[in-house]
């Protein structure tokens, strides 16, 4: 029965979960190389100005840096717990963990706001008079600091937005949209009706007669379901977004010691 239905209905969203994940990883690799270029820049200039870099790093607050590291690490945990919960059919826990992840991301950005704000207040920003009076090495350190943590912060914001989108998909009522193959429709015209039939062949109700006047059939089904059911397409959405989030965490794992812990 299900075989038959599948031949009539043309799926709008063919799914290849492994392919989707490979695509995501390839995208993440481009991100690694993007940040990798900046890390190389950092390495070259740190080798050139070792003393200035140590001096400039004393301006950074190790405590805030450590707190932000813990926030991102914990958010990585909650997002992976969200995946595990969805796989186990615990949608509520999955949604809760996902919301927690976004909140941790928000906490990270709030810290960043105060951290940057504090520094800018003290006149330490690229091109500022105070910074320009420092040594070339210190100027370079702060240029790299703002560029790298800024780009990273942008990634945190994007990650939060993406996870928010996934949260919406998991929380909303599932909607299936199907479009009937026109050539098959032509065969049925005038001698068919659209009906709901159970797995054991009982007709549960006629939805519509398909006569010569019917030109096209689009079916949009939205339904309520219990905790245990979930749309597998949501799982891959969640998994790929989580991969992005983890990458943002991995980048911070390197940024943290390189900027905050070299004093």
């Amino acid at each position, binding site marked *: 029965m*299900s075989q038959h239905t599948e031949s009539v209905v043309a799926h709008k969203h063919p*799914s290849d*979960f*492994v392919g989707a*994940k*490979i695509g995501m*990883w*390839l995208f993440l*690799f481009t991100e*690694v*190389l993007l940040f*990798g*270029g900046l890390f*190389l820049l950092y*390495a*070259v200039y740190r*080798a*050139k100005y070792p003393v200035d870099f140590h001096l400039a790093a004393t301006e950074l607050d*190790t405590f805030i840096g*450590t707190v932000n*590291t*813990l926030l991102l*690490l*914990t958010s*990585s*945990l909650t*997002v*992976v*717990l969200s*995946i*595990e919960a969805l*796989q*186990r059919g615990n949608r509520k826990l999955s949604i809760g963990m996902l919301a927690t992840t976004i909140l941790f991301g928000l906490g990270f950005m709030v810290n960043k706001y105060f951290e940057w704000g504090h520094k800018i207040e003290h006149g330490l920003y690229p091109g500022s008079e105070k910074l320009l009076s420092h040594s070339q090495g210190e100027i370079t350190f702060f240029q790299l600091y703002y560029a790298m943590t800024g780009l990273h912060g942008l990634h945190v914001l994007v990650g939060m937005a993406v996870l928010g989108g996934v949260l919406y998909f998991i929380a909303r009522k599932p909607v299936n949209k199907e479009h009937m193959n026109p050539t098959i429709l032509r065969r049925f015209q005038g001698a068919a009706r659209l009906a709901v039939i159970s797995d054991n062949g009982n007709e549960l109700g006629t939805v519509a007669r398909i006569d010569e006047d019917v030109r096209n059939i689009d079916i949009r089904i939205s339904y309520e379901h219990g905790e245990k059911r*979930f749309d*597998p397409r949501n*799982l891959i959405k969640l*998994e790929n977004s*989580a*991969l992005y989030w*983890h*990458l943002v*965490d*991995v980048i911070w*794992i*390197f940024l*943290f*010691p*390189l900027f905050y*812990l*070299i*004093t």
Partner: protein
Amino acid sequence: MQHEHHDPAAHEQALHGLGYGIYILIWIGLVVLTGVTVAIAGVDVRQLAVLVAMLVASVKSTLVMAYFMHLKYEPPVFRWMFLVLLVTFAIFMILLFSDVLFRSSPNVLFG
């Protein structure tokens, strides 16, 4: 659940059904390692400090990728792809530093 073998979700579950515990364990490890880097930064060990900090960061990111990002449980093609990334980055690094270290121009970076 007669269609279980068709269900990609069920397949995923079979693939990554690790349970919550392992993730919490990895998280504890990551927090401890963070403490280690912060503690070591306080000790004055000069050049060694960078090495240790990068080593700890590498261990931490390996843990995140292997367990949180499921790389350990994906088909081998994922790990091969990752190896290609590392080799690519290593080539960039070698090319850059071979230029920076051995360049002889009026505005040399070193010396």
